[in-house]
C-alpha cells in the first residue's frame, strides 16, 4: 500500500503539450503512472505520446470517466484557473508543481477544494512517489534513477514527508542505502499556503496499514 499515488490511480496531466509537461508525462509513464489523459485549452483532439488531449478536465472526465488525480505543469499565473477547473470536474487530488504561485491564488484553490471535498499537494512541489508503483510530478527525475534510489515498501515501508524537494529525494535515497523500504515519499512544498501540510500527510500515513 501507499498514500496518494499507486499504479492504479487514473491521472490527467494539465499542460501536457508544454515543454515540462510532455517530458514529465513520459517519465511518469516510464515509472508506472497510469496517465490516461492530458489537458491543454485549445489543443483538444491532439495526442501526446499516445495520451489523448482535451480542452478541459471536464471534457476528459466526460469522455473517459472518473479521473483520480491531476498533475499541473502550467505557468504559475495559470495555476489557479487550471486547478479549480480540475477540482470542479470532480478530480479529488490536484498536484501543483509550479512555483511562484501567488498566495491569494493558493487560498482560492483551497476554498474550491474545501467546497468540493478535494485536496491538493503544493504549490511548488516535486510531487509524490510510491516506490515500485507510480510517481506524480518529478521526484527522482528519471525513471531509472527513481528505481535505483528508492526501495519499494513491500510488504511494508517507511513514509517520507519533506517541505524541501531536495531533502525529500535525499532522504529517500539515504534510507534506501541503509536498506530501509519506503511506502511513499511526499514533497509537500515550501510555500506559505500549501494544500497538504505536514500533519495532514502524517495522518494519511497513520491510516495506511502498510506504512
Amino acid at each position: 500500500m501507499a498514500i496518494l499515488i499507486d499504479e492504479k490511480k487514473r491521472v490527467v496531466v494539465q499542460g501536457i503539450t508544454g515543454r515540462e509537461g510532455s517530458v514529465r508525462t513520459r517519465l511518469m509513464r516510464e515509472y508506472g503512472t497510469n496517465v490516461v489523459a492530458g489537458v491543454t485549452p485549445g489543443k483538444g483532439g491532439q495526442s501526446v505520446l499516445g495520451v489523448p488531449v482535451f480542452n478541459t478536465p471536464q471534457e476528459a472526465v466526460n469522455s473517459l470517466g472518473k479521473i483520480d488525480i491531476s498533475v499541473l505543469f502550467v505557468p504559475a499565473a495559470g495555476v489557479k484557473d487550471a486547478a479549480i477547473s480540475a477540482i470542479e470536474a470532480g478530480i479529488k487530488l490536484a498536484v501543483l508543481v509550479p512555483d511562484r504561485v501567488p498566495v491569494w491564488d493558493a487560498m482560492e484553490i483551497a476554498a474550491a477544494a474545501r467546497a468540493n471535498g478535494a485536496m491538493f499537494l503544493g504549490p511548488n512541489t516535486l510531487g509524490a512517489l510510491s516506490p515500485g508503483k507510480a510517481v506524480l510530478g518529478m521526484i527522482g527525475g528519471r525513471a531509472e534513477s527513481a528505481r535505483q534510489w528508492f526501495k519499494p515498501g513491500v510488504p511494508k515501508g517507511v513514509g517520507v514527508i519533506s517541505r524541501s524537494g531536495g531533502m525529500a529525494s535525499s532522504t529517500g535515497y539515504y534510507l534506501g542505502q541503509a536498506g530501509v523500504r519506503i511506502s511513499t515519499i511526499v514533497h509537500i512544498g515550501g510555500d506559505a499556503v500549501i494544500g497538504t501540510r505536514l500533519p495532514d500527510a502524517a495522518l494519511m500515513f497513520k491510516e495506511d496499514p502498510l506504512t
Partner: protein
Amino acid sequence: MARLHEYQGKKILAVNGFKIPRGRAVSSANKAVAAAKELGGEVVIKIQAWTTGRAGIGGVAFAKKPEDLQAHAERMLAMKVGQFPVEAVLVEENIDIDREFFLSFAIDDAARAPVIIFATGGGTGIEDRAASTRRIPCDVNSGPLNSAVDDVVGSCGLSPAHANQLAESIRKLFAAARSVEARSLEINPLALTKSGEFVAADCRITIDDYAVGRHPELGIEIAREFDHPPTSLERIAYAVEQNDHRGTFYFAQLATAAPKGSEGLVGFHGAGGGGSMMSMDAIVNAGFTIANFTDTSGNPSASKVYRAARIILAQPDLVGYFGSGSGVASQEQYWSAYGLAKAFWELDLDIPAVIRLGGNTEDRAVDILHRMSKLLRAPVEGYRKSDTPAFIAARFAELVATAAAKKWKPRAPRVPKFINHDVAIALAVKNGHVWIDRERWPQIRSAVQEHSGGLIVDLAGAPTPSVTAEEFATKDSELLACEVECHLAGIQGFYLELDIPGLDELIGGAR
C-alpha cells in the same frame, strides 16, 4: 516579502475608504517644515523605516510650531535603521485620539485562508498582549465572516454608530489587503478620534512576492525582503531572474569582507533550499565566511546557471567557489555543469572550486567539470550524492590552503575577437547570440554539428539552424553545451554570448 512604507500603505488604505491623517512624505528638512506650515496646528513627524518601536529609537516626534520640525527632520534623515538609511519622513497632522484599536490582516497557513486579528487598545507593546487579541476568520472571496465581526465589535462597548464604523473598518481592511494581494497589513493604531471618526494612524503592509508582477501600481523594484538596500549586483541578478523563468535563481549578498579569524570569503552556489542550508552549514563549520547566497534549482537552464556563476564571480576577494545543494537532485545535473564550466573558462578561474552535483546524470556532470579543470589555472573538483557536504567542505579547505588563500579579482570574460565582426555570423537565441567565425567554419562545421546535436548544420557553406528561428532561440542551453565541448576539444570559432545587462559595466567600474 516586499514591504511598503507607512506613507505608501496609507495611500492604499485611503483608496479603500479609510480616513487617514492629512500629511505628506518628504525627503528634506526644508520640505518637512513647508509641509507642517501647510498643515497648520500641531504635527507629528515619523521616520519611514521598516522597524517596529520607532518612538523608542527617536523616530517619532511632535512639534507645535513648523520651525520646531527642522531639527527633528534633520536628525531623522541622518538616521540609519539596520542597513537602511532613512530616506523619507512623514509629516502629518496630530490627531486627537479618544480610543485605540489594533487591526491586522494576516494569512493563516493552517486554515489556508485570510484572518483578521483585532484587539482593543492599540499602540506599542501589542506583542505582549497577544492573549487579549481576537481572531476574525475570513473567506478568501467574500471577506470577514459577519458573525465574527459582529461578535468582536459588540464586545467593545461602542455606540451603535461607532460600532458600525468599526465593523466597516474591518471589512475595508480585508478589501485593502485583497486589492494589493498583501501577505500582511497592520493598522496600529486604528484611532477613534475625540470628534468621533475612525482614522488609520499607522500602516504596515507586505506584498506577496509572487504577485508583485500583477501590481505595477505599487512601484516595487525588487520583490524581496533584504536586510539591506539592494546592491548593484543584486539588481543585476534580479533582472536575470525576471528574464528567464526556466528554473529558479536567487542571489543575495551576505558579506563583502571576511572577519578576523575567518578562513576567507566563499562564493556560494546552492541548489534547493534544504540542501543549500546543509551545505552552507558545512562551509561555515569549516571556518569560512559566505559572501553570497545563491540558489539555482527547479531544473534551471544551463544559461541561468552560467549567469549565476558570472554574478557570483563579480564579487572580489573570494578564496574559492563552493557549489553544493540537494545531494540527490531530480533535475538533470549536467546542464548545471555546463553552465559552470563556461563561466569558469571565460573568467580564467584561478581560485579553487568544489562542486557537488549529486543526483540525476551526476557522472556526466562530474566528468564535464573534471575535463574543464584541465584547462584552468586552479582545480575544479566535482562530487556526487555519495559525498557529504562536510566531506567536500573539508576538501575545499585543503584546496584553499594549497592555493595559499589567493584572492579572486573580478574580471571581464574572455571573449573571442571575431564576435561583433564582419567575419562572424550571428544567430539569435534568448537574451543572446551564437557567434560563428565564418573563416573557420569549414574546419569546425562537423564538430559544431555534432556537439550542437544537429541544431546547426551546413547549408551552402554557411552555418544554419536546422529548426525555426523561434525554436532555435530556446536552445541556448544546448548551444552552451556545444560551446563548452568545443573548448574542451580545442576548437575555436564558436561562441555563445549571453547578456547579463549591467554586469560588465559594474566590473569595469570596480577596477
